[in-house]
């Protein structure tokens, strides 16, 4: 079927139209699956949500294969090119997954300050919290005023963030540069901050776990609880 007068390969009109129809049908199937209320099926012994997600992404994968085969023309290319593209995709995927895993698993272990840079407070205010804040404070509170509650907390000595057993330089550093507002205090390492030293027990105000902070899993114990209460 290959027309030798053409450079490259011929794109059959039927294949282009056929793949378009198939893609539309598969898109409809994907949408239909997503709208399916699996909770109503009453099957408890199967994780139907996970199965539905797998089916949806599987359908997307079939659509991707159709696009790459018939619209990108890989169907008509040499086996070598197909093999190169197929294998290189998996190599790249492996690299991405590997580096992402290393980042989320060992973040902050080499450079603890990196944890602090990205461990910031979520701007999302849960509805219940907003409601409570709305009762306690006027709704027209400006952002500048919203910082006030955090600043108004009792001021602790600057070196309260330094645990006993730390080298004197660290204590000196915290005394000079450490924040006077405990709400702004950053531990050297969040894991250390969440686990008071057994030897000293010197952390008078151990920070409560803060699910609103961004970052790696397990980094939910940052004391940086600066989120003001509601709008």
């Amino acid at each position, binding site marked *: 079927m290959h027309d030798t007068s053409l450079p490259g390969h011929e794109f059959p009109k039927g294949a282009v139209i056929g793949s378009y129809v198939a893609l539309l049908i598969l898109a409809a199937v994907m949408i239909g699956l997503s709208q399916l209320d699996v909770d109503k099926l009453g099957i408890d012994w199967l994780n139907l949500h996970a199965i539905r997600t797998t089916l949806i992404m599987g359908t997307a994968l079939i659509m991707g294969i159709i696009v790459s085969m018939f619209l*990108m023309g890989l169907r008509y290319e040499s086996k070598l090119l197909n093999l190169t593209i197929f294998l290189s995709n998996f190599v790249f995927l492996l690299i991405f997954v590997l580096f*992402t895993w290393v980042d989320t698993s060992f973040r902050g272990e080499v450079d603890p300050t990196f944890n602090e840079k990205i461990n910031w407070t979520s701007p999302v205010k849960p509805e219940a919290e907003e409601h409570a804040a709305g009762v306690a404070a006027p709704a027209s509170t400006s952002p500048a005023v919203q910082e006030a509650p955090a600043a108004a907390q009792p001021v602790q000595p600057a070196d309260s963030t330094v645990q006993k057993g730390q080298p004197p330089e660290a204590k000196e550093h915290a005394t000079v540069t450490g924040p006077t507002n405990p709400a702004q205090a950053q531990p050297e390492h969040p894991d250390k901050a969440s686990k008071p030293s057994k030897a000293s027990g010197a952390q008078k105000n151990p920070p409560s776990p803060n699910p609103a902070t961004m970052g790696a899993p397990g980094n939910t114990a940052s004391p940086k609880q600066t989120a003001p209460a509601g*709008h």
Partner: protein
Amino acid sequence: MATVTGLPEHHVAHHFDSAEQEFDSAKTGMWLFLASEIMMFGALFVGALLFHTLHHGGFAEGSAHLDWRFGAVNTFFLLTAGLTMGLAVVSAQAGEQGKVRMNLILSLVFAAGFLVTKSLEYAQKFEHGTLPGRLWHAHHGFSDPFSHVFFGFYFVMTGLHAVHVLVGMGLMIFALIRSSRVQFSRSYFTPIEMVAIYWALVDLVWVFLFPLLYLIR
């Protein structure tokens, strides 16, 4: 120089031996470029899937606030533009210049439809305040602190994709201008096929973006 069919004869560049070699070189370059594109989007997809797994509640909440109908309409626009681009290549291979131009114009219209729908959707998100990171100012409907991360991925991935749609439209206009100057023939239609392959990548990315952001809860 025009041939007996009225179409111009293509002169192979001096550093190529034949039209076939010239075409293959262009295609290899295009595939290398597409590989870099797949790397870029692949990293974003891996990140989105990872955060989806880590913060399932926030992502489900964010996804529930997206209107799948916008996504469905955009899927239709993109796939139809993919069809017309494919038909443009078929027409170019048959030497039907009029059909090439018609299909390119149709592709442009559908691509523009995609961008209009996307801008309507973005306007809705700006109005509701569901913006990424510190720009977030949504006041109700969210309880998970990681919902804003979902919208971070949403805006980065769909925004980057929309930029690719814009670039694709520019390439279609470029091909349309060259086609109107009758610069393509049965022996030379490389730019049209390269634009079609590029557009298929835009389709390919959307085929995964749509379920990941709009359909999976």
